């Protein structure tokens, strides 16, 4: 693929932008994106990326620096786990809670899916999520369930972009992201005239709220929250600005009055 194709590509782009000036902004955004993508490709990728070598290196480092330096912890963990937290995080490669919230083995039971969504309680559909929550709440007896959203989420962007009118262009993605349709509706109602990125930012936070509300549709979650043994928290990791937001959900049923 040498330099000739690169020069040709740049020339065609220049020509196009001379002809169609209005495309300049779009071109700038796309060039920035390509530059960023290429930047994240590590320098060792001058040869082809070998995933086996990568995980071998990763595993050996883990074993040497973490496992062998902490035999007491890992000995206990081999017998069982008792994490205090259950975390819902996005599958996005940039937001692993083990990095951003420094979770160590044994700290957090973690479910990761597209846009960290929690569907409402259903015995049949999306049973995997129900299974995870049931295991965490009833077996592991976690004290907190934290749903963590993040900036520039592809799943939320999809939610905001797809028409979601039944004519699906994907096999599974649209069905999944429409779980947080109430968030989209709310954001569009409140900020119709905002820029798309701002709307996505608001939707990312609102979707966490929808997921928190959906958590309450699970009977064992409701019971735990009402009894005070379980707390529900929402979080938002903004990696554009290097910031983190945290909030909580209060739920309670006041005593009954006879009127």
């Amino acid at each position, binding site marked *: 693929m040498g330099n000739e194709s690169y020069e040709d590509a740049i020339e065609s782009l220049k020509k196009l932008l001379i002809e169609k000036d209005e495309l300049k902004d779009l071109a700038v955004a796309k060039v920035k994106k390509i530059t*960023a993508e290429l930047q994240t490709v590590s320098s060792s990728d001058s040869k082809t990326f070998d995933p*086996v070598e990568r995980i071998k290196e990763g595993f050996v480092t883990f074993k040497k620096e973490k496992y062998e330096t902490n035999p007491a912890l890992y000995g206990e963990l081999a017998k069982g786990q008792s994490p205090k937290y259950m975390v819902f995080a996005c599958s996005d490669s940039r937001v692993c809670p083990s990095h951003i919230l420094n979770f160590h083995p044994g700290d957090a039971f973690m479910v990761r899916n597209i846009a960290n969504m929690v569907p409402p309680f259903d015995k049949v559909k999306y049973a995997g999520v129900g299974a995870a929550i049931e295991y965490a709440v009833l077996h592991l007896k976690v004290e907190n369930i934290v749903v963590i959203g993040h900036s520039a989420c592809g799943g939320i962007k999809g939610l905001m972009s797809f028409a979601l009118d039944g004519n699906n262009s994907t096999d599974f993605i649209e069905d999944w992201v429409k779980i947080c349709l109430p968030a989209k509706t709310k954001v569009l109602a409140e900020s119709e005239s905002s820029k798309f990125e701002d709307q996505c930012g608001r939707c990312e936070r609102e979707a966490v709220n929808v997921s928190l509300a959906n958590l309450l549709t699970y009977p064992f979650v409701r019971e735990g929250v009402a009894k005070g043994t379980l707390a529900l928290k929402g979080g938002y990791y903004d990696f554009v600005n290097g910031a983190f937001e945290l909030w909580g959900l209060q739920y309670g049923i006041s*005593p009954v009055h006879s009127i």
Partner: protein
Amino acid sequence: MALALGGRARRLVYGTLVHQNGCLHKLQQTGSDRFQLGEAKAIRLLPRRTNMVQELGMREEFMQPNRELETNYDFLGEMRQRFLRFKRQKYLPEIEKFQALAIAQSPKVMVIGCADSRVCPSYVLGFQPGEAFTIRNVANLVTPVQNGPTETNSALEFAVTTLLVENIIVMGHSNCGGIAALMNHQSHQEQHSSLVERWVMNGKAAKLRTQLASSHLSFDEQCRNCEKESIKDSVMNLITYPWIRDRVKRGEVKIHGCYYNLSDCSLEKWRLSLDKNENGFHITDREIWS
């Protein structure tokens, strides 16, 4: 790097109305802290509790105990510490990389792992931010395409067709609670199955094979075998998705399985390869690292 000097922590309070069991419950969020580097003084805001005594004219003794407040307070502090440690030790030292990542991600690997707190793929396999798109569910199960939508296959579709990952790793592990539940589950209790049991029954085939081959072994040893058999099934189920199968055949996507034994810290890994006649798949390159 912008410093938020004298930044005020913003409080977000929304109300969301939810219909449940015929009653309207108002869910209120309270107390939000924005952690920014540069705040020399951590501004702690106690979550605001609505004064229900005034609003409803109720007597104080009917109020729920203040436990909510305590856990909220500790939790906030702990999360702050954790995040700032990440920011100090990782984010700021590599700020250019993180700023580039903020614009786009292009991970080469997708990992399907278990939700177990002890087996985070980023931790055990050493993936750094930006390297691995990660799906985690109970017992790292991948169901075949004909079973319909699950949260796992929507993530699979996104990673393979949009992010164009080149490698898929299914990572299982020893002492898996989900697999133990599968092995324990008695089929005649079908109607009373818990959600966990319903989900792990997706690994039924692995359980049957394990019982056939190793019924003479202890329950624990059978579980170890079932964990490995289940990884194989999940890997084969990946191939039922046409957009994965096509890419594997074209050599654009490689599939790997690995098994992390957390008692002795060893990793067994293998690759799925296309048969010579291009119609089937088999396991190759098996290695154990310990």
